[in-house]
């Protein structure tokens, strides 16, 4: 098992230098949780064994995690475009070693906003049994990997840094339409169920709600079958992976 720790540490150091990314992945989700989860009165309303603040917190952490991994995925495409992959091709580093470093970096940066938002949540009134904290965090990290593929696909398709920033920006839009930033109802909720962030966030929230979403007007729980959540996650993971495979093949032919 050889893992290049020097490369991994330098990757993290690069990320820490990028203030814009740090803002979107850590500061923004923390702030949003504070505004929409911790501060309002409804935050302390119960959901099963937890409360609404917890429900909001999971979503904000999710937004931070996918922002982070989308950026990592996109950066791989940019590095390839700038010839860094070629530079590495001149060294004994194997492609699998490179992937290991990138995966480890992605997991680390996804874990950062989750830990910070969860820590803030813990101190400001988010409540749930211990196993909900643990399993939701685990599911968030796992599912964030899908969005590394989303960022990679964007980067490969448009081949520019602006495109990767746009991919990050699109997450904000998808969060509004995906029941992430605030709860939707009626036809908007129906539409949301088809967007990529919906499944990812719903899966992590199920640990709290047992499989339901909140109706913002009546504060009632609206039940949702597990297969719908899984179908959403499965479809989008498959779609992002397939798009990346097609684009990688295309870029190889171009060389």
């Amino acid at each position, binding site marked *: 098992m050889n893992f290049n720790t*020097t490369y991994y540490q330098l990757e993290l150091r690069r990320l820490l230098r990028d203030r814009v990314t740090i803002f979107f992945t850590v500061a923004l989700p923390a702030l949003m949780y504070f505004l929409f989860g911790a501060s309002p009165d409804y935050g302390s309303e119960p959901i099963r064994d937890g409360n609404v603040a917890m429900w909001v917190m999971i979503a904000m952490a999710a937004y931070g995690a996918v922002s982070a991994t989308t950026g990592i995925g996109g950066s791989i495409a940019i590095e390839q475009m700038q010839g860094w992959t070629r530079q590495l*091709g001149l060294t*004994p580093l194997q492609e699998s070693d490179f992937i290991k470093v990138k995966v480890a970096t992605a997991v680390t940066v996804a874990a950062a906003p989750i830990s910070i938002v969860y820590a803030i949540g813990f101190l400001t009134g988010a409540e749930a049994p211990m196993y909900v904290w643990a399993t939701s965090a685990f599911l968030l990290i796992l599912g964030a990997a899908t969005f590394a593929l989303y960022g990679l696909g964007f980067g490969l398709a448009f081949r520019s840094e602006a495109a990767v920033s746009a991919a990050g920006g699109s997450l904000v839009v998808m969060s509004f339409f995906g029941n992430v930033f605030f709860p939707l109802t009626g036809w908007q909720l129906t539409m949301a169920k088809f967007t990529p962030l919906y499944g990812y966030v719903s899966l992590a929230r199920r640990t709290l709600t047992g499989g339901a979403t909140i109706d913002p007007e009546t504060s009632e729980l609206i039940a949702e079958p597990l297969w719908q959540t899984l179908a959403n996650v499965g479809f989008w993971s498959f779609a992002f992976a397939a798009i990346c495979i097609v684009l990688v093949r295309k870029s190889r032919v171009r060389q």
Partner: protein
Amino acid sequence: MNNCIRLRDLHKSFESPDDGSEIQAVDGINLDIHTGEIVALLGPNGAGKTTTLDMVLGFTSPTSGSISIFDRSPREAVADGRIAAVLQAGGLLRDLTVQETVTLIASTHNNPMSVDEALHRSGLTELATRRVQACSGGEQQRLRFALALLGDPDLLILDEPTTGMDVEARRAFWETMQTEVQRGRTVVFATHYLQEAEDFAQRTVLMANGRIVADGPTDEVRRQASGKRVKARFSTERLASVSATISRFDGVRSVSSDQHGLIIDTTDSDGLARLILQDLEGTDLEIESASLENAFVQLTSNEMELAR
């Protein structure tokens, strides 16, 4: 002498992105490069130099033919650190410092040269803490060179290494390279700067349209290709007939005139000089060696005519 690079009947074709037709980028190359040689791969853009070097480095596979680098495949030679390259452009992470970049690439090698030593040899010690994005083109090229040294390679490949450098940076770069050659490295560089081939390479391989059109000691390639340029004066009334006589003489490639007389490109300058002085009553005879620049134009344009 040991063989470093051995290419046999190497072909590489691409599908044109425009109309899907097939482009022969490399069209049947045979080449042996021995340990300790400094070889210039010279040719205009599109001659197939970069494609050839990409195959030598294992970035792309040949359509047909074989490559061996120290009797193994290119990828094996790269993994062993026996071959390294200075890439043409890009290939650096702009947000890392010079030292971090060297540290990162060093971490991929089994027995790397120390980071300080690589920085020192490439003249980067002073710039160690500078971000790559703040480095000039010449400094970035020195950094790529430092990265190539890390694995202590026996064979260094340079693809147009001084593109974008000013005269001073270019001279300094080649001085550094001379030192490395004295340490026993084999160097192969692609260039379209003819002066670089003349100044630095013992051997020049001239490429055009995916083929090798000349290969030998650099001064011989020049001589063989271009011969000499002869100038002489003649009386005005006889100019037309003299010109006709000279054009029929063996070895003459071209005849042109200016206000001073005739300018003749030839491979047999001695024979032509005798003819001009003894039989044609020419005066003010001058003979000069053509530069590699002329050789280049001559050979590559001949090749293009053949291709048509």
